């Protein structure tokens, strides 16, 4: 892991408060890893943990939703602007090990890390993406996924409801999930019924991003684990969800 200054290649608004930031970073990145990003000096004080959307040819892309002060500044970045990055952070997924039929399940901006995961998988991959309103970032998945299922709570062009209502773990050898905790808990519970292996990508507020501050812990069967370096990928059945 390295702390360095890099340049913005592009920063594209995808929809409403969803953006894709491309940075000039020449790192070997594993799917599921993230970076601590900081594009300011004084305020806010902390970097923001943002997962890798995709990485190739010296460009690392980050898909993010504007939530607060930090992501708002990120959304205003232009090509050639400087960004401080610390990373890549986290265990990530060794996608090359996964075989068979694989389901990727995302809720909202939880779709962000799924693209790099889909790209690394060799088996047959289906995406199940749930959104609050209209879907985003779907197009690029068409290259890597056999079937794409979309649910939306408000956009009537898609299945109306939660994505978990149209997903059956019985059909899959492996499930990988990222989204709000209640959704991930539901997916893990569903997978338990069929003993389908399930991985979840956790998120939390972070101060250091290197495992030192213990601010981002989550509860697991083996006690508290740091989302930043012990995760963000955990076996779903190991996590004790608070939701």
């Amino acid at each position, binding site marked *: 892991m390295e702390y360095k200054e890099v340049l913005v290649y592009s920063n594209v608004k995808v929809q409403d408060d969803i953006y894709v930031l491309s940075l000039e970073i020449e790192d070997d990145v594993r799917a599921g890893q993230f970076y601590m990003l900081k594009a300011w000096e004084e305020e806010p004080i902390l970097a923001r943990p943002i997962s890798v959307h995709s990485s190739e040819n010296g460009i690392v892309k980050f898909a993010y939703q504007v939530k607060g002060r930090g992501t708002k500044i990120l959304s205003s970045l232009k090509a050639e602007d400087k960004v401080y990055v610390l990373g890549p952070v986290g265990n990530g997924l060794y996608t090359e090990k996964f075989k068979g039929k694989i389901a990727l399940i995302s809720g909202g901006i939880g779709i962000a890390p799924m693209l790099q995961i889909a790209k690394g998988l060799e088996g047959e991959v289906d995406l199940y993406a749930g959104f609050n309103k209209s879907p985003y970032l779907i197009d690029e998945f068409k290259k890597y996924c056999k079937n794409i299922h979309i649910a939306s709570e408000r956009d009537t062009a898609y299945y109306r409801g939660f994505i978990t209502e149209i997903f059956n773990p019985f059909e899959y050898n492996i499930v990988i999930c990222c989204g709000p905790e209640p959704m991930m808990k539901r997916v893990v519970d569903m997978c338990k019924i069929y003993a389908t292996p399930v991985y979840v990508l956790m998120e939390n507020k972070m101060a*250091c991003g290197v495992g*030192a501050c*213990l*601010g981002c812990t989550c509860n697991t069967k083996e006690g508290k684990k740091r989302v930043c370096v012990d995760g963000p990928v955990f076996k779903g059945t190991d996590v004790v969800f608070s939701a």
Partner: protein
Amino acid sequence: MWFSVLNVKFCGVDFKNPVLVASGTFGFGVEYDGIIDITRLGGLITKGLTLNKKEGNEGVRIHEVRGGMLNSIGLQNPGIDEFIEKHLQRMKEFKVPIIVNLGGSSIEDYVKGAEILDKTEIDMIELNISCPNVKEGGMNFGIKSSIAKEVVNRVREVTKKPIMVKLSPNAEDIVDMAVKCVEAGADAISLVNTFKGMAVDIYKRKPVFNNIFAGYSGPAIKPIALRMVYEVSKAVDVPVCGLGGIVDYKDAIEFIMAGAYLIQIGTANFINPRASIEIIEGIEKFMIEQNIKSLDEIRGII
């Protein structure tokens, strides 16, 4: 080599420069290995350790606010035995002085912890009587100087390691607290720990933290921390280690001029992982520019 001008002798321990990393912001050092050159630091202070392993607090643990951050980690740590077994040797490899931050929720815990640490190769104990996030026992050792005095007294009896007592800015009277700790046998004083603060989640209409209160740190607290370091340095005849909101070398030099022998970098490690190294380089450059041959020339100058 100008490097030698940064030397500080503190409680009999040689520090090659006055810049340490504060407890809880640097883990056991290894977390930052490869990100910065840890061997360049003045010294390492461990994450707060307790006699027995602690899982720490539930719920939100960190919350950023303007000028800093609130934390409520709750002294999560592996316990002293596991620290000695798994982390101490690795820390020693950085070849800088190792200070163990020792916390506790009863006097007996502090005493037993210090007894064990006395037999190890650590250089110093930083007695943490000021963690605002742990409240078992209903006693907060950092608030009342009479209680603090007893803890220091009892720990003094069981160890020959230098004891640096870390004070809370929430103490009833910080100067009296420092004086009482020195009377009880403290070899040094470090201050300040975090300020007791809170935040409200207006959508949930609840406190952000399960414990309601949390420790406030970061650049916003610097002027108050500096004032306290200044007051305490004047009042005690043991060396003082200053911390609280130090972000750059100018902040660090202010603390030194206010009387600090050593300084600690805390929240700034999160703002910029290279902060401690940049501060060391900044102090050195300042000394060269100002033709200062030794920190003795400027320490406590005001």
